[in-house]
């Protein structure tokens, strides 16, 4: 225990430098976050909600931070070689927390849409950013409070009222560092009333030999009747740790679909906290985890219905091979204020080897009688009968296994509503299950 202290000490000694490298809107929240962290620890394994993953352990190494905002060497062009190129001309690269727009992005961003550095946005549009920054994320989470304390920059995506962004916005986030480092990144996505947009984030690491940790807090504010799609694909390395916390606020009649796909990683904890604040909303939460080696993938979801007549669907699927570990803890919460809620949650997992482990804990908290809710979790193995049937037709066992795994994951791929993104994801999943390494190994700068 006690990993938090070193970062608070770091903050105390470097607060002026941290502020100087950021913007007022972000700096204003730091003292609030510091207060929220008083007497707190980062959650350890076994603490309620963190059964299998220790955040404290994740943060325990004495990582450095790039507070002085040195431009770390990174071959940005190499990012284009990654597995999901050309989905969109609206492409930006984020190196650690530094936003690097592409020429095509600057040329193609439609009117009424901002895709830019969060710190820059906070300087240029302080009122707008202040309205949303920190409005969805909860400082009750020590991880989020720490992120708020240290974050200097990140990504800001804002779509004005009734503007529909046709093309998906693609953000490639890269961790690139010559020394063990903590990256604190912040993403803020705002769709004003009636706006719609789709975002694809591809999380890569260019420093496969260097241990690195990313703390990322994503805030999504879905205005009334807005529509937001976010697909987040992680393809990093076994040296990488990631603590990703996604907070969503849905206003009336908004429609949000989020997919969290872990294809390659080291240790990952993803949290999804959805607050359905307005009536008549639709929420889709899809999660996929493909584990091999010693990968550790932990997803935690909480969809809270606070208004009537909304529906939510959660689907999480894991395929775990070798000695990989998976954890899922998901809940649906229906408050007394949310009659006529329909909420579903399903977690299905395949253990492809004897050494793989899955821990799952689906939960329902219902404080209203007039609802339709269900949840379920299954963990099993590949179907031996199907495997033998395929082999008897000449399909080699390994290929048959791969085909069955792909078929199993197809359901999660299909939760992605944007066709171009869905197709790329399907391709990536096929490659991953066929045993290819994540593409970032090619683009090691």
């Amino acid at each position: 225990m006690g990993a938090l202290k070193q970062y608070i000490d770091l903050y105390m000694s470097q607060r002026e430098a941290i502020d100087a490298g950021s913007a007022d809107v972000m700096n204003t929240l730091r003292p609030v976050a510091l207060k929220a962290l008083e007497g707190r620890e980062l959650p350890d394994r076994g603490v309620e909600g963190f059964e299998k993953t220790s955040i404290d352990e994740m943060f325990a190494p004495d990582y450095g931070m790039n507070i002085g905002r040195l431009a770390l060497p990174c071959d940005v062009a190499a990012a284009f070689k990654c597995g999901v190129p050309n989905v969109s001309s609206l492409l930006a690269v984020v190196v650690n927390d530094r936003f690097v727009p592409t020429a095509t992005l600057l040329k193609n961003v439609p009117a009424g849409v901002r895709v830019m550095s969060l710190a820059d946005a906070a300087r240029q549009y302080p009122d707008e950013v202040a309205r949303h920054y920190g409005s969805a994320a909860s400082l009750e989470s020590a991880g989020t409070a720490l992120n708020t304390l240290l974050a200097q920059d990140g990504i800001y995506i804002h779509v004005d009222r009734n503007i529909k962004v046709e093309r998906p916005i693609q953000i490639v986030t890269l961790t690139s560092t010559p020394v063990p480092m903590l990256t604190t990144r912040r993403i803020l996505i705002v769709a004003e009333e009636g706006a719609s947009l789709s975002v694809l984030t591809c999380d890569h690491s260019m420093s496969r030999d260097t241990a690195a940790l990313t703390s990322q807090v994503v805030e999504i504010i879905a205005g009334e009747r807005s529509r937001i799609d976010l697909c987040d694909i992680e393809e990093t390395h076994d040296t990488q740790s990631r603590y990703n916390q996604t907070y969503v606020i849905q206003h009336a009649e908004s429609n949000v679909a989020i997919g969290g796909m872990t294809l390659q990683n080291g240790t990952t904890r993803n949290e999804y906290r959805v607050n359905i604040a307005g009536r008549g909303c639709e929420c889709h939460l899809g999660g996929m985890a493909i584990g091999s080696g010693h990968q550790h993938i932990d997803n935690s979801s909480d969809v809270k219905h606070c208004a009537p007549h909304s529906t939510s669907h959660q689907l999480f699927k894991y395929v775990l091979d070798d000695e990989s570990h998976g954890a899922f803890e998901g809940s649906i919460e229906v408050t007394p204020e949310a009659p006529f809620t329909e909420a579903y949650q399903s977690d299905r997992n395949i253990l492809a080897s004897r050494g793989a482990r899955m821990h799952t804990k689906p939960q329902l908290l219902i404080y209203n009688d007039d609802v339709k809710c269900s949840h379920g979790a299954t963990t099993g193995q590949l179907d031996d009968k199907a495997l033998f049937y395929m082999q008897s037709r000449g399909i080699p066992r390994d290929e048959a296994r791969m085909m069955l795994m792909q078929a199993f994951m197809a359901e999660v791929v299909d939760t992605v509503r944007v066709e171009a993104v869905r197709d790329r994801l399907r391709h990536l999943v096929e490659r991953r299950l066929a045993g290819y390494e994540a593409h970032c190994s090619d683009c090691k700068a």
Partner: protein
Amino acid sequence: MNELLKVTDLHASIGDKEILKGINLTVNRGEVHAIMGPNGSGKSTLSAVLAGNPTFTVTGGSATFHGIDLLDLAPEDRSHEGLFLSFQYPVEIPGVSMVNFMRAAVNAKRKYFNQPPMPATEFLKLMREKRAIVELDNKLASRSVNEGFSGGEKKRNEIFQMAVLEPCLSILDETDSGLDIDALRVVAEGVNKLKTPDNATIVITHYQRLLDYIKPDVVHILYKGRIVYTGGPELALELEEKGYDWIKNQVDKEAE
């Protein structure tokens, strides 16, 4: 070489239970063999063991398939070498389309023989041709393997796969079970169309009915894990008339 399959003193178990207790069987090219017998005599086990189902353990004996040691091969390689098992209960594989399934099967075989994958147009043409043999609906091709297929469609699908893979030895395990008379006719006609002087078929069945359509050259009776009686086509008719009891009595009496 005329001899296609030679099974000698084959023993196989599931767990501690021995099911095949010394099977001897020789099948020549161009022949149709029927293996009949009461329930639980080991008919399906024999077909499963020949196809390489890992549920069963071979505890003794040998099986030679056109000169090679069949029992030494992985199930997929047995298929590549020309063995085909039509399943009594074809397996449903949700999420794997028939087209992808067959493409994987066809190309795996080509790879085994160091051939490049089949070009897409050629593959589609092959599918079309072979579907016609068993009157298999084109719509089933885009569906998941056997998922939601009727009993008759599943069995037709088996013969369709057999037609595509062109095996030299086909084992039809209770292909008649669950089929109405029309489906039975279509399936049997499909099998007959695929018959050549170079290949052979083993029909495993409980009833004579299928043998009205697929005429056997040799009929074996399997009982308690052994082939206890071998005769010509007339043996099947005799069984239909008298049932299995006379065989059972005779064998059980000899055992005493």
